[in-house]
Structure formats: C-alpha cells, structure tokens
C-alpha cells in the first residue's frame, strides 16, 4: 500500500496500461512535456516517447476524430480533454462516431477509446472549467461512463477503462485530484468489474447515492448524520448499476441522490425514476435529489452555494426521513 493523490494514482494506472499494451497511446493538449495541466500524464512522454504520448493541436473535434481513425487501425487511444467545458467541440464526433461505430459497422470495428475529462467544480476556476456534463454521455447509447471517487478506484478503473473494448467517457473529479488515499499498486485491476456501484459505508436508515466529487462529501455527511446512512458510490454511470441501489433502498426505505450537475434531466432523475419503479412499495418517501441548481455554473465566489455540501446532504437526509 502506498499513499498517493488521485492524480498520481491515475498516472500510475496509465503507466501500467501502457506497459501492458503497446497499442495504448495518449493524446491530448499539453500532455507531453507539460504533463497535462493537472500533471496526470507527468513523466509519461519522457518514459514512453513522443510516439505514445502525443501532444495534440488545439482542436477537440480533431483530437477525438483522429483518435477514432487510430482506433480503426487497432490503437487504443486515451484522449485527455483539458477541462470539462472544452469537450463540447468534440460532441459531434463522440455522439455520431465514437458511440456508434461498432453499431454502424455491424460489429466489425471496435472503438476502444477512452476520453478522460477532468470535471466538476470546487476549485475556484473561471467559467467553462467546472462543468458536469455526465448526463449528456449517459443518455448516449453506445458509450460507457466511469468516474472514480478515490485514488484506489482511480488506479484500477482507468486501467479497466483502457482495457475495455467499448468507448469509455472517463470523468475525473478534478477537485479530488489532490486528495490522498491508500493505493495498492499490485492490485489486479481485472479482479472486479468496474461496471458496478460500490457500497462504501453501510447504513440502515437512509441510502445516499452519489459519485465522483460528491462521494467524499457524502461520506463526511454520513459521519456527521444523526442516523445510520448507507453511502453508495455509483462509479459506473453508464451502465448504471441500479440493483445495488435498489437493494439498499429496500432496506432503508429512503434515498437521496447527490450530484453537482443541474437537477433537471440529470443523473439523479434516472436514479429516482428507476428506484421509484423498482422499490415502489419499499420507499417511505419520494427520492430526493440534492444537486446543483438549474443555472449555468456560477462565478467562482458563488460556487460554494451552488455545490451540494455536507449541510445540504444532511438537510436532504433529514427531509427524506421527515417526509
């Protein structure tokens, strides 16, 4: 076990994946000599060369589109999008090509592409640097979406994402990049499937489902709550592992879903809809969503009011119990 930040764990995971399979190439803006603006690819160009860690021109559609071409040739490109707000120029290639190529070619051409996106707020950034675009990708058939919540999960799931023969949108909670945790670098990344939700803390009274940056917040809230809170890290946003959440809700009777993204048509809606369907007779209160508001991400001095924090999660827990 080693203590390291999530950024370092991702770096270690990328390194392992590159050692394991020589057709893994990293591609993105400033990922080479600079090591990426968050240093997640630090040192990899030095060690693997400019042919495997490739600095890209400043054009996101181009980066994803050429990666599709590389994947058609059997490469496994791992794309870095510099910030969440800059993935939209690539949206067309992602939705029309990345997600659909396997289908379009009747199974002949796989698209083992990983698109890494630092996402979410909480770091005091300027506009377009704090977006939570996960719902767009989860709604898009053909994509898989993963988001780690701690260094160990990051280390393993980035390797699993790269090993997957399906395209994976890999969302990295940027404000957790510097959080430290224990990482077992010898852990077998393929021992467990990444496409499952994880019960991180068992509890009896209320289930809190969350992911990515909100997991730490929810764990802290569970600690502070005056009832027994079960915290579930969804981890795989597509496919969504509702079974684990439903099993929990059948016991607790209460569910709070927490995310940073705006509420309307966000992930919370899907979780609420599915759980309401599957746990109709177990739910003692409606599923409650604790999320960002339906506004563009605000100026950074307002973000603490926008983002769900410990108090808002606790308020949600209280409200479902009091219903």
């Amino acid at each position, binding site marked *: 076990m080693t203590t390291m930040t999530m950024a370092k764990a991702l770096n270690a995971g990328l390194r392992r994946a590159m050692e394991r399979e020589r057709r893994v190439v990293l591609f993105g803006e400033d990922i080479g000599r600079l090591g990426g603006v968050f240093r997640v690819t630090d040192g990899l160009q030095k060690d693997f060369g400019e042919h495997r860690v490739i600095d890209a021109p400043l*054009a996101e*559609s181009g980066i*994803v589109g*050429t990666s599709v*071409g590389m994947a058609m040739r059997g490469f496994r490109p791992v794309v870095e999008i510099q910030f969440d707000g800059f993935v939209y120029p690539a949206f067309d290639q992602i939705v029309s*090509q990345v997600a659909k190529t*396997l289908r379009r070619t009747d199974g002949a051409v796989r698209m083992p592409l990983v698109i890494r996106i630092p996402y979410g707020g909480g770091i005091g950034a300027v506009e377009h640097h704090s977006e939570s675009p996960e719902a767009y990708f989860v709604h898009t058939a053909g994509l898989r979406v993963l988001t780690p919540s701690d260094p160990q999960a990051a280390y393993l799931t980035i390797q699993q994402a790269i090993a997957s023969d*399906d395209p994976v949108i890999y969302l990295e909670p940027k404000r957790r990049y510097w959080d430290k945790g224990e990482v077992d670098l010898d852990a077998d990344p393929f021992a467990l499937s990444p496409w499952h939700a994880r019960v991180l803390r068992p509890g009896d009274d209320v289930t809190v489902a969350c992911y990515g940056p909100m997991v730490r917040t929810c764990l802290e809230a569970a600690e502070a709550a005056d009832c027994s809170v079960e915290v579930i890290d969804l981890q795989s946003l597509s496919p969504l592992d509702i079974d684990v959440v439903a099993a929990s809700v059948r016991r607790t009777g209460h569910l709070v879903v927490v995310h940073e993204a705006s509420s309307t048509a966000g992930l919370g809606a899907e979780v609420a809809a599915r759980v309401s369907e599957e746990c109709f007779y177990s739910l003692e209160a409606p599923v409650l969503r604790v999320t960002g508001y339906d506004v563009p991400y605000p100026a950074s001095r307002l973000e603490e009011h926008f983002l769900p924090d410990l108090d808002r999660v606790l308020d949600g827990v209280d409200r479902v119990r009091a219903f």
Partner: protein
Amino acid sequence: MVDGMLGSAVQLLTPEGERVADEDYDISLSNAELKGLYRDMVLVRRLDSEATALQRQGELGLWASSLGQEAAQVGSGRSLLPGDYAFPTYRDHGVTWSRGVPPLEVLAMFRGVSTGGWDPIALRCAIYTIVIGNQALHAVGYGMGAQLDGSSEAVIGYFGDGATDEGDVNEAFVFAADFNAPVVFFCQNNQWAISSPRERKNPAPLYERAAGFGFPGVRVDGNDILAVMAVTRAALERARSGGGPTLVEAYTYRMAAHTTSDDPTRYRHAEELEIWRLRDPIERLKVFLARQGIADRGYFDQIDREAADLAVMIRDGVRSMPEPPAETMFDHVYAEPHEQLERQRRWLVDYESSFTHEVSS
C-alpha cells in the same frame, strides 16, 4: 487548360477524347488497364441508375447518385494499392466499387436493412460517412496510426466541395499538416452542395486552401480519368514516401439530383447540365479507346451486357434481402456484455412474441 472554368486543372484527356500533355503529370497505362477503367465506370453508372430506379420503386429508402463523377471516383479508387485505406462519403459508389465492396452491401444501407454494410477492415475501405466532414479526421487518424506503425500505407479521405466549410475538414488539414500524415484529401468539387452553388460563393479555388495549411493542393479535371489517376497516384506516392498530405480537388459535376429526395429544378438551370454532358467522363474515355484502337464495338457491347447482368443481379439481390429481426437492433451496441441492454432485448422479444402467440392461439 482550354476550359475557363477548370482554371489551372490538370488534364490529360480533353472532353473530345484527345490525349494532351501536362507539365507536371503524366500516366502510362496498359490497354488492359485502360479498358478496365472504362468497364469500371460503365458498371458503376449502371449500378447507380439501377439503384435510382429501385428507390423510385420503393425498394430503397434513399439513393445518392454518383452520376457524372465516375472518373473522379474510379480514377482515384483505382489509384490505391491494396494496402491503402479509403474513407468514402455516401456518394462514392465508384470508390467502394474500386475497393471491391459488393454492390449489394452498399445497397443494404440505402434499403435500411443495415447501418453498416461491408467489412471495412477486410476491404480496407471504411463504411460511408454521412455526417459531413467527420471521415476526414478519421482518415488523418488512420494515417497517423500507419505512421506510428512504421507502415508505408497511404490513406485517402473523400469529401465534397460543401464539406470544406465544416470545421472537421479544416481540423483534418491542421492535424495532417502537423503530423505530416500520409493522407490524400480527395475533394470532389461537383459544383453543388445540395442547392448551394460553389462558384457563386467564395471565389477562392478550393485546392488553394491547402497551401495555407502547409501542404500542396492541386486541381484536376475530375471528368478525365487519366488525369485523376496521374494526380492521385502521385499524391499517394508522396504520402507513402513520407512527403505528407496533399489536397486533390477533382473538378466535376453532380449530374443527378442531390439524392432521390431532392428536386434540383428549384435551384439550377438545365443549361448547366447540358454543358457538363459534353464533358461526360465515360464518353471521353470511350472515344479515346476507340480512336486509339484499344477497344472496339465488340468490347463496348460486351461491357454493356455485363452491365445489364449487374443490373439484374442488383435488382434481384435487393428485392430478396432478408428483413433483419427486431432484436438485432441490440447487437453491436456494445462489444462487451451489457446487462441493461440484455434486459431490454429480452423484453422486446417477449413483447413481440406475445403478439404472435395471440394470433396463433
């Protein structure tokens, strides 16, 4: 170049079928090769007219005609080596033909029984791309991959004149130049992007776009198959030998409607068509072959019979394509197991079989 509109285009065969010289390009083909090109163009044209007819009869959902662009498509497609890779658009039936894609596999997509069609890996030819410009980036990425592999394959990416407006095509130019990718951008300037005329817009010739991105561009008479081959071969060879990308603008004309859904009488004059009929790519080569004594009436008749057989094969083949079972829509959405989709598939199968049961019980 005599023709004012063509400007500085490379030409080796005049519309009258006369062999002329170009300063920079030449080509020497055997008689068998020349006859083969003629055959290709005639068969592709027949494929196209048959598909148009099938669409009218309701057998295809849509058809995008390649009429008039046979020299550009066959000439470039036949310039590829077996190991090269092509990225065609929805209109490039002469390209897929040249790559050996079975015509029925092309028609399956337009009939709507398949989204894909052929095996792009085995045939080294991507399936058609409909979202304008997307495939230009795929071509560059594929070429970058060839480069990383140390292979000397070249890649050709097709798009139309209208597509040069799209960000993706211009980003493809940027990436190709930055990585010196072994790519030939083959732009068929067929004068129209649906109802949008090329000439009346931006006056800059399309091939000149390349220079600003740092690589050469060349305009070729797209209805002259010899010139198209000479220019494309040179560009591919340049790519294979590490010279980087080239933009080839094939100056040609969309003789038919944009697609079978389109009504071009709303936006273009019949006279334009008449002018271009005189530049027909097939007639031109035919006159040349005849004049040079390379092929005679007997050969032309034989090709016409082949074309008639092809038409029958296509007609019968399309009409007898099996309908895909409903649950195949769940195939190939993901390469790896996906429980949620499996549940949906099972639901659909149960649901649909409930009707059969009702009826049969």
